[in-house]
């Protein structure tokens, strides 16, 4: 009886693993094979025409990169400062817990809620126009918890000897932060920011009402202009799913987006692994 039970459990484990692997490999194969079939030089260097059914995704790539880089510039200094405060000044146990909780909540808010908030707050309450920097702003808010946590945990891994010897040298807290901790929190936030960028690069829901238009976007020449991003472009193409040209271009845009996400995530993970080795 035990034997039968044993075989059943083993069988279930292997079966589940086989199913999962087939799904995983299937998805990756489909994305790579179909994507490569659609990508060529002109796909990357041409703007889209005819609602994306023809032409390439040049402006979408530029729009995506522009939006996430500005988001990064906005959220990076704030996250570092917040991490320094949380690690050096916030000594109350209760407030540590509360701020952890708030950051976890901010990190877990569904992306569509960020979109709703952006539409309400920026467009309805503040009266701004649909423009790409609003997208950067909301994406920067989405990145904040990842960057703050990553910077904070790297600061926490600092060995107490270093802290003590700095203070024994007569540095005040402010001097210690400026001369030593700032650099360290910087390093922690950089590895986190690659992971954060990998996450926000593929976001569609937060920006689709406040920052993008669906056709005719070019390279923005001023602040108050909408752009197109890869993710919103894929959305338009997916909505024309019965048109073979649109689907083919959708696969191409998907593969480019995945490659960008993957490169960012790989850099982030490599940097984090290196940081975990160094004390």
């Amino acid at each position, binding site marked *: 009886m035990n034997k039968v039970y*044993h075989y059943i*459990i083993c069988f*279930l*484990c292997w079966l*589940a*693993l086989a*199913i*999962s692997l087939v799904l*995983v490999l299937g*998805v990756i194969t*489909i*994305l790579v094979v179909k994507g490569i079939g659609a990508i060529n030089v002109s796909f990357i260097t041409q703007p889209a025409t005819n609602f994306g059914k023809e032409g390439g995704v040049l402006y979408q790539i530029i729009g995506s990169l522009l939006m996430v880089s500005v988001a990064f510039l906005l959220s990076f*200094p704030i*996250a570092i*400062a*917040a991490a320094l*405060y*949380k690690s*050096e*000044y916030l000594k109350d146990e209760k407030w*540590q817990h509360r701020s*952890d*909780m*708030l*950051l*976890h*909540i901010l990190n*877990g*808010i*569904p*992306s*569509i*809620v960020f*979109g*709703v*908030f952006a*539409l309400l707050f920026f467009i*309805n309450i503040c009266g701004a126009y649909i423009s790409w920097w609003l997208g950067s702003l909301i994406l920067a808010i989405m990145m*904040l*918890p990842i960057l703050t946590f990553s910077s904070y945990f790297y600061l926490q891994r600092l060995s107490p000897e270093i802290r003590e010897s700095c203070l024994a040298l007569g540095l*005040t*807290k*402010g001097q210690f*932060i400026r001369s030593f901790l700032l650099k360290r929190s910087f390093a922690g936030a950089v590895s986190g920011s690659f*992971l954060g960028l990998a996450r926000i690069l*593929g976001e*569609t*829901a937060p920006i689709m*009402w406040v920052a993008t238009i669906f056709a005719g976007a070019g390279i923005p020449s001023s602040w108050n202009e909408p752009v197109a991003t890869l*993710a919103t472009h*894929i*959305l338009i*193409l*997916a909505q024309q*799913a019965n048109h073979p040209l649109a689907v083919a271009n959708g696969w191409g845009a*998907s593969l480019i*987006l*995945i490659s960008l996400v*993957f490169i960012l*995530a790989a850099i982030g993970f490599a940097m984090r692994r290196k940081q975990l080795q160094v004390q």
Partner: protein
Amino acid sequence: MPSCRKELGLKYVLGLSFFVVASMPIIIFLVLLIQSKRAFFEVGWGLFSTTWFPAGQEYGILAMLYGSLVVVLLALSIAVPLALFSALALSEFIPKSCRLVIKSLLEILAGIPSIIYGLLGVVILCPWLEQVFDISTGRTLFAGGLLLALMILPMMISLLEDVFSQIPNEYRDNASSLGLNKSQTITSLLIPISKSHGFNIVLLAMSKALGETMAVMLVIGCVDQFPNFWLPLSAGQTVTSKLGRDLGNYSFYSIEFSVMIAMALILLIPTILFGFILRNGRDIK
């Protein structure tokens, strides 16, 4: 003293940034709450009716809530057993070198943006469902559930495997010296030990699934009615797909807009609960 002022200045600058970050979720919550005031006061219990028909002053959101519930339960009932047994196989039966390869594949899959899963769903899953079940359109609640299961599966396997492989090997050695074979070790040792972590992982997957928008929106069919047939093989609507599809169509200050904001507020509830459950400072991915 100038240096003292500098010290204080630094503290206040850092403190201000910290305040901005920590108050962000509260600001978001309050803005949504204030804007959905009209929905709560003017529609009130009318929110809990099954008809969504703004032209006839009916603002029932039960159909969307039902859609979300069905889709999430479907996804969890497929993904949880699959992820549990896959993670057990990965941590107990597979050699370590192989495990690393599979885990990095899972990480890749977990990082794919949801809009790309939506494209997969529209182009591959829905036509496939049409053929299998011989229905006119594959865009159904069932398709949404399947796609969500696929989306949360890699994350769940990866996290569950972490839990299992963090259990020290001495436990396994002790179990086998007591005469337990591998499957008995699994059912009487590994699963009971990791129960609470596993529960947290399921909660995390659930809140991810509940808030997923783009992929679900593309495959769900987007019909604002309570499915009149009990099987999920009919088109429906979830809270997120309703928001994603229609929020831009209603004018600010209208009641239907306010009701939509109230639905976004409902989406926040599991996130907040989850924040309370999981507040011990664990690293987030």
